[in-house]
């Protein structure tokens, strides 16, 4: 029986590749293999480990902040200066140096070549340099903890004029290191990013049409395009601010009397900086969200043993969200003093994004519907992602709708919202992805009991941290406050809540040690995974060896005959058919 009329988009013949094996650079030394490696898989691990290491620092900073907020005055080493320095470094590290680097440099490097059926990134040397520039940026950033005055305390948004004026900690050295570090980050990222884009466009194997790409690749691909277009805005604002600070130019600096002294600046515009920053900053939200979208689509489909619902629409939603994300930036600036008539435009564009975003959510849930759901650890995290993302997405409608944002802006509602949507959700996706792909990367499974423990504490704990926090914001408690002191409208019970949140945060943070332990121990003691432990269709599971060797696919590149989601095809022997199985081969002898 020919399954062609049943299976979606499957063919029998694909022209073989003209070049069976590309000439890859094969390093001779240990150093060239593992340190200055040009293999995307090694670079991916370097990126991931560096990102997780700084991420741990950012996590520690968040615990320190929570200590102060939950138990004000108890920890005397947390001064008001230290507090806002922690806030700033925590935010910046989490958003840029952890999540952006991990999703694009980490998952992007590992998964793109494997999933599109390429031997490596198109420009392996540049790819290697990209990592080392990133590492340098990280070291510069961390160096700011050790310079006089410490790191900058201007908030991760770095708004001038305060960023470079006394009255804000780190206004001399800390901020310079931050700006220079960001500039290097952008440079390093651009090298990597061009690579990811060109690889997706040029190095797909035969048969891998764009509409057969796994959604993970789509998510990372689109996020990379966004980043390539958005980061330049950050780069120029970093350069302009450096000039303002060092040479005394006035790009962002109007005439100012600071602490009684009239400064030499005049004529610059602080609001200009905010436009530049958010022209980068809003797409940045999607730079961490789109890869998470893609990954979660993958996990849900694989572990529900069901094709992703509405694949085409999922792809279009990613593209449309990516495009729209460049015309919504000023929803972060409703109270910035920009022309209030902009509010009409930006509220409308912002709420339009809600439509493709909602479609993605429906399609995830509809993929579960009539599935055959295996609640593996990656699947638990994927479902938890959908749950928190629904929550965070909905509060985004509050903040996007300009008039509703007015009372909520700059309160804890905002903190709760963006943590739900761009902190908790992507982090849950990262965990899901790690549990899912770890067997491919190491050849061994992560311990499931520890995994479940890690999941439950993290998911429920994070929800307990952030859900109540919205209500502090509705009450009116402003963010970035060292302490609320005596404030009539804040009842004492709010402090009880704050203490509770802090305790939950400490529990969640310490549970991450269990995860790290699991990661470390399972490399040697985990159950052997085999080539395709989840029964997945995409190419990374069809490699000749696990972990995949240099060049990924052995002698012959795989040919692709079908889309990435042939799960539970009626009549097929197994409940999945890999992408490299021809249409007539799906009756059972596929594997």
């Amino acid at each position: 029986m020919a399954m062609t009329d049943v299976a979606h988009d499957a063919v029998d013949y694909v022209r073989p590749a003209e070049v069976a094996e590309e000439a890859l650079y094969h390093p001779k030394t240990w150093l060239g293999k593992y340190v200055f490696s040009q293999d995307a898989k090694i670079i991916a691990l370097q990126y991931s480990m560096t990102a997780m290491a700084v991420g741990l620092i950012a996590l520690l900073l968040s615990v320190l902040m929570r200590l102060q907020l939950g138990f004000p005055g108890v920890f005397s080493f947390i001064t008001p200066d230290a507090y806002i320095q922690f806030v700033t470094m925590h935010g910046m590290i989490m958003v840029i140096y952890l999540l952006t680097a991990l999703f694009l440099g980490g998952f992007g490097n590992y998964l793109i070549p494997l999933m599109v059926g390429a031997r490596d990134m198109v420009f392996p040397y540049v790819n290697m340099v990209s990592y080392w520039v990133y590492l340098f940026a990280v070291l510069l950033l961390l160096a700011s903890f050790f310079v006089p005055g410490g790191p900058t305390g201007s908030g991760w948004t770095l708004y001038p004029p305060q960023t470079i004026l006394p009255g804000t900690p780190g206004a001399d050295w800390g901020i310079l290191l931050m700006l220079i570090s960001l500039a290097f980050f952008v440079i390093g990222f651009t090298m990597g990013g061009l690579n990811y884009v060109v690889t997706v466009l040029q190095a797909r194997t035969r048969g891998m049409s764009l509409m057969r790409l796994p959604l993970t690749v789509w998510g990372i691909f689109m996020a990379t395009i966004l980043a390539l277009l958005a980061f330049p805005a950050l780069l120029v604002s970093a350069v302009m601010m450096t000039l303002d600070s060092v040479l005394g130019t006035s790009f962002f600096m109007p005439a100012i009397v600071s602490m009684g002294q009239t400064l030499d600046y005049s004529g610059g515009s602080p609001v200009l900086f905010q436009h530049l920053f958010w022209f980068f900053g809003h797409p940045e939200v999607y730079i961490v969200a789109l890869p998470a979208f893609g990954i979660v689509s993958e996990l849900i489909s694989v572990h529900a043993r069901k094709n992703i619902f509405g694949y085409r629409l999922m792809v279009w939603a990613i593209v449309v969200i990516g495009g729209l994300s460049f015309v919504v930036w000023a929803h972060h600036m409703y109270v910035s003093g920009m022309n209030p008539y902009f509010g009409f435009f930006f509220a409308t564009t912002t709420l339009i994004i809600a439509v493709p975003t909602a479609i993605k959510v429906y399609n995830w849930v509809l993929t579960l519907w009539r599935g055959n759901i295996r609640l593996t650890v990656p699947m638990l995290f994927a479902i938890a992602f959908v749950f928190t993302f629904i929550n965070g997405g909905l509060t985004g409608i509050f903040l996007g709708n300009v008039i509703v944002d007015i009372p909520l802006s700059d309160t804890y509602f905002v903190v709760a919202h963006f943590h739900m949507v761009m902190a908790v959700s992507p982090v849950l996706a990262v965990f899901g992805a790690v549990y899912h792909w770890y067997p491919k990367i190491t050849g061994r499974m992560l311990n499931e009991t520890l995994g479940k423990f890690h999941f439950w504490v993290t998911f429920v704990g994070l929800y307990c941290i952030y859900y109540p926090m919205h209500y502090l914001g509705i009450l009116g408690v402003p963010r970035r406050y060292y302490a609320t002191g005596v404030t009539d409208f804040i009842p004492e019970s709010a402090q009880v809540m704050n203490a509770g949140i802090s305790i939950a945060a400490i529990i969640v943070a310490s549970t991450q040690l269990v995860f790290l332990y699991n990661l470390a121990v399972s490399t040697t003691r985990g159950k052997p995974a085999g080539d395709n432990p989840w029964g997945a269709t995409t190419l990374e599971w069809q490699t000749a060896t696990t972990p995949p060797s240099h060049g990924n696919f052995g002698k012959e590149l795989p040919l692709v005959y079908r889309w990435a989601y042939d799960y539970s095809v009626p009549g097929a022997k197994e409940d999945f058919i890999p992408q490299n199985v021809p249409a007539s081969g799906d009756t059972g002898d596929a594997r």
Partner: protein
Amino acid sequence: MALAIILVLLVVGSVLFHFLSPWYLTPIASNWNYIDDTLTITFIVCGIVFVAINFFMAYCVYRYRYRKDRRAAYEPENKRMEWWLTVFTTVGVIAMLAPGLFVWAKYVEVPDNARLVEAVGQQWKWSYRYPGADGILGTVDIRHMDGRNPFGMNPDDPNGQDDVLVNGPEIHLPLGSPIKMLLRSKDVLHDFYVPQIRAKMDLVPGMITYFWFTPTRAGRYDVLCAELCGTGHYTMRSHMVLEEESAFNAWLATQPTFADTQAVKVASAGGSLAEQGRQVAESQGCIGCHSIDGSPSVGPTWKGLAGRTETLADGSTVVVDDEYLMESISVPNASIVAGYPPIMPPYQLDEGEMAALIAYLNSL
């Protein structure tokens, strides 16, 4: 199974929390009930979606849990359902956006009869200016700002002479008439924020921003700064007193006009040491946070400081002498006066400046 139950519990818990927890909007004191109404609409629409999707997800997790003998459905596309969901979502979004924009249109149109009041922000305190009898605020410029003219009033502008300047801790406003708050910053971004008013707006150095509202409920409310403005951000406080027109007028009459403030002769002892100290205090910006007339501010007042007994944060007491003063200037966080935040930056002054400052402080 466990997951389905937990999902349901989280949803139910969230809804219960919404209705039962003691934390919600503060009672409103302005005309912006509209804002509260749009917030309520948004809560209803989003709440329904939140409950519906998550319950459905929990149902799927339970109903379609893995069984060896079952196969998932194979349905790559369902155009009809996708269309319906898109249309349904669009309608929901419009139901929230339309009222939102309708209210926003009111928010951006300031009524013609609105009274002008100006709030001036600096690190880390608020001051206020009223237009005086002529109803016109005089022009200002950063260049005119100094210790005697903290508002930067243009001394040659006749419109400014009768402006009422409130360099103190309260802003008073009359009930019932629309107020246009003009916002001006001397140094960095701030944000004039009174939760009970709902409206708020950033202060941006180099430009004048504004918003409007009509006070509707008498009371005394906290004014906070909602835009990060440095170390002392969280201490940038003031109070807004909303009262009847008559009480307001009586209060306003007790406040000095710009002309009044300029008429007062400073007891200037020419080149005396204390006078030099005054200039040091001004140029270093000390007076941003310390008053010299006994009024409360970010830091303790300097009036009568020398010789006073201060209670420190750790409960001990200290008599203010020259040594204590010097330490407090060069290492402020060594001893913090009880009730004040540890936000003063350390100052590196040379010996002459220090001596002058001490002389000045002793003279107050």
